[in-house]
């Protein structure tokens, strides 16, 4: 987990779409929203879940590993950047290899876009847009200590398991108090 990072708590998400609207303000992908807000069990539940880039650390993000053009760079602070514009060939390997379903692709531009932790803001000490506008704290930005100061009983995990593979992430997921495992299921049946 990165020292100052996002903490995603799907249990707090009310599906208001504020994060989706605010994400469009990010300078690195102006006018396009990179956050995903999915309604999980439509018709039976109001559950919704935001998905940002998890900035995988294990040992290199899968999107970067499968890139044939070395276009996905990881900066020293652990942020997995969106594809370098001069290198990306628009093959979509990253789109389909990402276990979290994060990257998007514009085939006409031959360019991948993805959440880059609002690098224009976080690199100068500001919080990402989504965390700034989230009314319920489903997306929190700060250190683990700052999160626990506000939510002392929260359980935090930076390990997501997909079948036989665990992925360590730079962004953390919050579980309710009493959650016994140190990992979160990734959804792969």
């Amino acid at each position, binding site marked *: 987990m990165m020292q100052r990072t996002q903490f995603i708590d*799907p*249990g707090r998400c009310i599906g208001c779409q504020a994060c989706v609207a605010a994400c469009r303000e990010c*300078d*690195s*992908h*102006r006018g396009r929203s990179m956050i*995903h807000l*999915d309604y*999980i*069990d439509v018709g039976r*539940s109001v*559950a*919704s*879940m935001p998905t940002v880039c998890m900035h995988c650390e*294990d040992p*290199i993000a*899968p999107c970067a*590993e*499968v890139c*044939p*053009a*070395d276009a996905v760079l990881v900066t020293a602070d652990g942020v997995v*950047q969106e594809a370098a514009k*001069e*290198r990306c*060939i*628009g*093959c979509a390997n990253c789109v*389909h*290899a*990402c*276990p*979290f*379903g994060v*990257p998007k692709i514009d085939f*006409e*531009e*031959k*360019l991948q876009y993805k959440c*880059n932790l609002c*690098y*224009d803001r976080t*690199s100068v000490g500001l919080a990402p847009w989504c965390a700034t506008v989230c009314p319920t704290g489903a997306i929190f930005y700060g250190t683990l200590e700052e999160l626990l100061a506000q939510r002392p009983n929260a359980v935090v995990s930076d*390990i997501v*398991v997909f*079948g*036989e*593979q*665990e992925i*360590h992430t730079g962004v953390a*997921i919050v579980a*309710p108090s009493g*959650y016994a495992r140190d*990992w*979160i*299921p*990734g*959804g*792969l*049946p």
Partner: protein
Amino acid sequence: MSALRRSTEDAAAPRGLDVAASAAGVAAALVTLAAIYLGSRRLRDFDAALIGYATATVFLAFGVVYRYVVWVQSPPARRYLVRGWGSFLSWRNFRDFPTLVPRELFSNLAFQTFIAKRGAGRWLAHQALFWGVTLATLITFPLTFGWIRFDVVPPGSRYAMYLGGVRTITFAPLTWLGWMIFHALDVAAVLVLIGCTYFLWRRFRDREATTGQRLGFDFFPLVALVAISVTGLLLTFDSALLDGQDYAFLAIVHMAVVVLTLVFIPFGKFFHVIQRPASVGVDVYKRTGLEREGVFHCRRCGAPVESAAFVRDLERTMQELGLRFGEWVETCPRCKRTQRGERYLEQVKRGFS
């Protein structure tokens, strides 16, 4: 759970000298040397004043081929190299889709229409930069290799251009054609300066470009191109208006800037020039794959994912990389997220309780 974690050693370990890449690089350097030697008629047409450029090009050949061979050894690049060239050179593809490759070469490499989709200004600037650099490359390399030379045709009113020792065209120096031939590099420099001016402006003012930009990777190439163009134009300025009084000094400065830029090509942003043609092969591979094998549909919702060949190949690539969730490729990104949400609801949050 740590047993499920992949080793970080492979990714973190610094690479030693790559033997195969070194061998390929040395072979490329030797081929370049042989091409210079033979093309200049055993150095008879070689201009010793330009030896710095030729030497840098030999190092450039080594560096570019070394990096290329290292690059294509990674599983995803190797797979696309094989698939891309296979599709590009396929007689069956040419027969079934005769216009596909020419269209790709035209739109993707020559006119880079995908950049126009990113912004008209960026496209115009990149076109100016691209054609300027292409023109300069087509002139400079043959000239510094001694493949092309110019000589006076007796009694002295016309010039002749020799290619590999063979006389090609003759022209009067004070005509429009003569001016264009002797100032083609100036035209190239102006085109490059137009492109660089826009991109430098963007690097200072456009927050999309300034986010995460790096001095060595993003600024240095532009500064190098500006330095080459300005020092090149100064040579013309000096000879035209200052009677060439500082020409020797300016020529050395220009050569030093060009040499430094040439040997930098394999290491930085300029390498995208070598990588970009891969997109043609990938496009041909994906489009012909879609036509022949059809689309693969998401296992969960039935939405189209990609071509069946793409899905199969990406699963293999992930397997080779040690990513043990390759079958996840068969699920569309939205269903991946939704299923993760379902597991969170069932196993982590356990409903609203």
